[in-house]
């Protein structure tokens, strides 16, 4: 069905279509609309799920863990401080190999209170073992949320998936949306290690180094399997529903001398900057990275990369730049720290970053050095 929706409503609609058995969530700006919409679906009977209105995000994630280990599908959504408050249980969910799907509406961190877009919330969960995907449009938020269940529940993966969408910029914007019936695109969940009283086992028991090590390696093996599973989920999505996605959304990259690299909505707006620069004769392109973990392969050889860093590792550098640099040590990078705390970054600004790039350097946009 063709309609218009906000990013938040799109996520809620996708969750409805994915039919989780349990949703446990806690409100936080700018994610609230997702929770409210799901509560509405459940109350009206449009969605046959248990909705647990928990008293904190720590409990939201933990309730999902409790539900998931019984072998049912579960979902939650959060943002910013809510995600941070879950942190302990994010490690738990991934370590316990539970295919929980979560929408994270990216927002800055306090103090001071700031409710606008930034990627630090997701970045600070980078090493928890969650698969992380960033989306750039309302439709993509919907489609990716559906894919997330299929990817998380794949027997070769069995890791939780976080779908990231920019706070307000995407969560609250209204764009066109085509909803669909996923049919058997998401096969029924089979959790091999689910709790089963017929087959009792201890879960999370004290574990010595040798076994512990195996479990950790199992997580990494799953991460290394994930790219082919995600590609397959994206291919199959295209085959069935006609919209194509990949690890990186490339725009006019083939012959580009300079490529702007970004996540989320900044990466969409960057395409407008690329069009502007092309008119000036500058061979610019754009790479919008969708999967942040596992990190995708990038074609960085022989071109300048202007990386928009919407999150920073203090004492080190822009988080996205760092990921690229450590994967491709020879990459030529100009790191632009921009968009923190919802800072406006327009296509004109992005075009300026490209025109004025100083390769190998870092630039904090909007700060007088």
């Amino acid at each position, binding site marked *: 069905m063709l309609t*218009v929706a906000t990013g938040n409503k799109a996520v809620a609609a996708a969750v409805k279509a994915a039919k989780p058995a349990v949703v446990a969530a806690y409100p936080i700006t*700018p994610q609230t609309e997702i929770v409210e919409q799901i509560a509405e679906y459940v109350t009206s009977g449009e969605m046959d799920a248990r909705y647990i209105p928990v008293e904190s995000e720590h409990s939201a994630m933990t309730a999902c863990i409790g539900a998931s280990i019984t072998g049912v599908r579960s979902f939650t959504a959060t943002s910013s401080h809510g995600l941070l408050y879950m942190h302990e249980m994010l490690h738990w969910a991934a370590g316990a190999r539970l295919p929980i799907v979560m929408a994270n509406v990216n927002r800055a961190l306090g103090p001071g209170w700031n*409710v*606008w877009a930034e990627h630090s919330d997701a970045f600070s969960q980078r090493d928890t073992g969650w698969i992380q995907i960033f989306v750039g449009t309302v439709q993509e938020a919907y489609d990716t949320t559906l894919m997330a269940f299929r990817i998380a529940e794949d027997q070769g993966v069995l890791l939780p998936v976080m779908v990231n969408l*920019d706070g*307000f*910029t*995407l969560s*609250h*914007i*209204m*764009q*066109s949306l085509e909803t669909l019936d996923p049919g058997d695109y998401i096969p029924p969940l089979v959790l091999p290690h689910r709790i089963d009283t017929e087959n009792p086992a201890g879960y999370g028991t004290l574990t010595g180094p040798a076994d512990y090590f195996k479990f950790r390696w199992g997580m990494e093996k799953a991460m290394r399997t994930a790219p082919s599973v995600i590609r397959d989920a994206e291919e199959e999505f295209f085959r069935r529903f006609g919209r194509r996605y990949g690890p990186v959304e490339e725009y006019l990259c083939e012959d580009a001398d300079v490529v702007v690299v970004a996540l989320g*909505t*900044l990466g*969409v*707006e960057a*395409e*407008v900057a690329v069009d502007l620069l092309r008119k000036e004769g500058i061979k610019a392109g754009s790479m919008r990275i969708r999967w942040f973990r596992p990190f995708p392969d990038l074609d960085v050889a022989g071109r300048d990369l202007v990386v928009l860093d919407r999150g920073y590792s203090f004492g080190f550098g822009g988080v996205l730049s760092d990921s690229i640099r450590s994967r491709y040590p020879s990459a030529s990078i100009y790191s632009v720290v921009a968009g923190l705390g919802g800072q*406006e*970054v*327009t*296509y004109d600004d992005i075009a300026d970053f490209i025109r004025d790039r100083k390769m190998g350097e870092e630039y904090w946009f909007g700060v007088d050095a």
Partner: protein
Amino acid sequence: MFEIRIHSRGGQGGVTAARLLAMASFLDKKHATAAPFYGAERRGAPVVSFVRIDDQQIKIYSQIRSPNLIIVLDGSIMDSVDVLQGIQPGGTVLINSPHPVDLPNVNVLTIDLTGIALSVNLVVAGSPILNTPVLGALAKMGVITRESAEAAIRGMFTDERNVQAAEAAFKELIV
């Protein structure tokens, strides 16, 4: 691309007006995005929302800096906010007001949306609803079609008075 900025107060329905307008444009087979700018607003605080309408996919997320059309749902905002900021040369301002308003160098249209809402008793929690009647005015201005305006309203509200108010605004606005 046609860019619109809507000024209202928190609770007056400016955000809903933007969403209805995007919906109507979409029904007109155009691309549209509607985005509220969220500050830490509370009931009664001035708020803005943005609508973009185009024939192609809209990839811009940053705020509208030079709108073609500015809609002011609450005239009292003009005392504290420069509603004309960045307006395109030759741009238009649509103001909810029972009286003509004179502003230099722009096309000004006025319509008494509050009066229209009250006349059909379109009042919720003591406040007249402005977001549906304004759609009628926008249809008259040719921003959206009359049919799509009505369909968008019916898609969001079941109370027919919303459509009546939009109809009344359509008839009343002189362009």
